[in-house]
């Protein structure tokens, strides 16, 4: 069973699988995002409280979800690489970080633009946005640590350890921010998000979530191939991969 697993995680295998999977992920994500956008922006009814401003959720929520998913992926891949010494895990973690960080920025910008009509200001230290901001800082830390070492293997392992420490901390950070927010603001500020949705609003959202995940898969595959090439420059199989 282990030999099978190691072959699955071998760089050439991963390289070819990623190459084959990219167009599938990409085309399916275009379909899902296309349906979600049209159904969400055109056909879904406006929210009874927020009007059409609630439609921002169709881009905000998938970005926020992806920012956390990419961080978890990064920590999991790093953990696997650290514990079982499967080097491909470091490549996955390194590929995942910039994608996750970019969607964290997207979630922050869209959340802030959503906040303007809801709160009357672009930034109200809403607990979810504050946690998102700290998540961005965590990404920055991991991304700054990896290239800081002269020897790449060491940077990979250090970044993996830091991302695991971060993943343990994320729930603590989130709950402390919620506690802090309730201490200072009370419940006067409307929370972003729509608690109960009818199907006509929910299905487009789920489709957008799926589409963003597929898009993440596609971009991860492309970046992963680059990371694998960078790490395996001496290997014999790279010669054939480059020619193809």
């Amino acid at each position, binding site marked *: 069973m282990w030999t099978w697993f190691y072959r699955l995680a071998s760089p050439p295998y991963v390289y070819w699988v990623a190459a084959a999977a990219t167009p599938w992920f990409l085309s399916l994500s275009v379909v899902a995002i296309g349906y979600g*956008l049209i159904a969400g*922006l*055109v056909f879904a009814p*406006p929210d009874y409280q927020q*009007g*059409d*401003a609630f*439609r*921002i959720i169709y*881009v*905000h929520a998938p*970005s926020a979800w992806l920012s956390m998913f990419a961080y978890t992926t990064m920590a999991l891949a790093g953990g696997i690489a650290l514990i079982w010494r499967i080097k491909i895990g470091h490549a996955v973690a390194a590929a995942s970080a*910039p*994608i996750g960080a*970019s*969607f964290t*920025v*997207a979630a922050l*910008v*869209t959340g802030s*633009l*959503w906040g*303007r*009509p809801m709160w009357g200001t672009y930034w109200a230290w809403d607990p979810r946005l504050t946690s998102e901001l700290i998540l961005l800082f965590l990404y920055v830390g991991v991304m700054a640590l990896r290239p800081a070492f002269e020897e790449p293997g060491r940077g990979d392992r250090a970044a993996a350890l830091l991302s695991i420490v971060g993943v343990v901390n994320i729930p603590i950070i989130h709950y402390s921010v919620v506690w802090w927010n309730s201490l200072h603001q009370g419940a006067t500020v409307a929370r972003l998000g729509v608690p109960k949705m009818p199907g006509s609003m929910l299905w487009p959202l789920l489709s957008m979530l799926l589409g963003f995940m597929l*898009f993440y898969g*596609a*971009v991860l595959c*492309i*970046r992963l*191939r*680059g*990371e694998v*090439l*960078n790490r395996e*420059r*001496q290997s014999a199989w*790279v*010669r054939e991969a*480059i020619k193809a």
Partner: protein
Amino acid sequence: MMSSGFWSMGGYARFVWPCVGFTGAVLAWNLWAARRHFAAARTRSARALAMAASDGA
């Protein structure tokens, strides 16, 4: 084609459309940056291989 009500988003147009635009830009940037990252890695590997070949010759 489509009613002006759609584009005005019930008066929230100046919040909704920048959000959609920004997220679209992030998606596009990701695709572009990933492709560039891969292309750079490929050229680097090719150069390293070429150098190894010339050393062997």
